[in-house]
């Protein structure tokens, strides 16, 4: 089945990482990207403004119940959790999870609930354990998880936690994650067997 959504989580070092990840996506990239970057409660729209300079896709902070559309990189607003419903975003002011609001786990788990095997989760640099549970849930529901190679991460803890948890399908250097996703989601015929890359799927 074709992928429908990419969710990305990052914390410490995330801004520089996103500045490398996002330029890889062409303006006609077929999947929406949704990003949680840990940040302080009072940081406003500046993050989206900075990332806009590095992205051919439109960058915006979604509002509650906004439809999820391709052609966009959605940035979780500060001081809210961002969740995925079947075709729209939902926001909450529930308590922070592991000191984080927005929380990567909250985004990832809700994406896995709504999209199951059609989700790709990406965990980038961060000095936190956030994202590991969410990545494990995405993988358990049949989705795909990519962890940044910790050796290429400004702060390796977050991707390393995902890998140690056994939740990563792929571990890739930062500069290869974008091109990988572009090829994976281009739906070219020769890439169809990519699902077989999972030894636990489609193999006798």
């Amino acid at each position, binding site marked *: 089945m074709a992928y429908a959504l990419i969710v990305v989580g990052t914390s410490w070092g995330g801004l520089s990482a996103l500045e490398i990840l996002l330029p890889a996506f062409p303006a006609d990239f077929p999947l929406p990207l949704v990003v949680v970057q840990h940040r302080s*409660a*009072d940081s*406003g729209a500046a993050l989206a403004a900075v990332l806009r300079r590095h992205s051919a896709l439109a960058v915006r*902070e*979604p*509002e*509650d*119940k*906004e439809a999820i559309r391709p052609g966009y990189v959605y940035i979780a*607003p500060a*001081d*809210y*959790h961002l*969740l*995925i*419903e079947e075709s729209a975003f*939902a*926001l*909450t*002011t*529930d*308590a*922070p999870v592991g000191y984080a609001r927005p929380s990567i786990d*909250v985004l990832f*788990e*809700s994406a896995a*609930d709504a999209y*199951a095997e059609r989700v790709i989760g990406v965990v980038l640099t961060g000095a936190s354990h956030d994202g590991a549970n969410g990545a*494990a*849930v995405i*993988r*358990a*529901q*049949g989705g795909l998880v990519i*962890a940044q*190679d910790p050796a290429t991460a400004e702060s390796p803890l977050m991707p390393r936690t995902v*890998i*140690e*948890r*056994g*939740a*990563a*399908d*792929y*571990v*890739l*250097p930062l500069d*290869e994650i974008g*091109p*990988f996703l572009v*090829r994976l989601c281009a739906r070219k015929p*020769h*890439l169809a*067997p*990519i699902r*077989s*890359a*999972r*030894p636990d799927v489609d*193999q006798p």
Partner: protein
Amino acid sequence: MAGSFLGPAMQGFMVPAIQQTEELPEKRNSELEKLEIHLLLEAIYHHYGYDFREYAYASLKRRVENIRRAEGVTTISGLQEKVLHDPAAMRRFLLALTVNVTAVFRDPPFFLAFRQQVVPLLRTYPFVRIWHAGCSTGEEVYSMAILLQEEGLYDRCRIYATDMDEAVLKQAKEGIFGLDLADRYAANYSKAGGKKSFADYYTAAYGSAIFRSALKENIIFSQHNLTADSSFNEFHVILCRNVLIYFARPLQQRVHQLLYDSLAMFGILGLGSKESLQFMPQEPCYQQLEAGIKLYRRIQ
């Protein structure tokens, strides 16, 4: 090795994940969970009268899962049995399902805009009725009281602060917050246009801070359920911030109608910073005061 199954285009830049020290969670049956949650909400509605059936699913599910874990039961069906037969478990359920975690002067630009744009309008009224709908633990209610006091308007204002949950309201009435939050609140306060020192508004003791009683004088805390109760007055200002995000669209629309019906002509509606009137039938009845700030004036 996973790599050997990849086509030629993928070779060379994939590193298979190998270390596996923890078990992955079991695959969840999302359809079964949806059914169990549906039955749980029906049961609660029919037995206790609380209606969560039109809440937004993703956040509701997350909260129900948290409650299930906290109650130590393995399935949502098990949680249903517990809340139906144990009223104390139902009270805990209600509290956990309804508390929103907010802050004093949450979203300072909102309060700054209120001070600059709404306060001048309120000065023209001899008496101002404000409804804070879904006030949760009260932080934003006290913020409004502080703002109005500094603007010299508080004596002619009455703030009706309502929430559906009694336990939350009790906390709101006490007006106590952790002293560890004071620095953050003080920063919010000054970004929101505060004119004095935030420390003037509370008394600190033993790691806690309590808002000065003068701030509570014109606040009426009372129980009101936005999803079931009707309008109870006409107001000049209604604040309903980050409450409607928990509701699915049809319920949002009904509550927006209730807010509209409760707002005087040219009254002000304040929403959360990521909430929108867009696509609501009531949208044409309002005019936004300032781009990017969720303050609306009723114009018809």
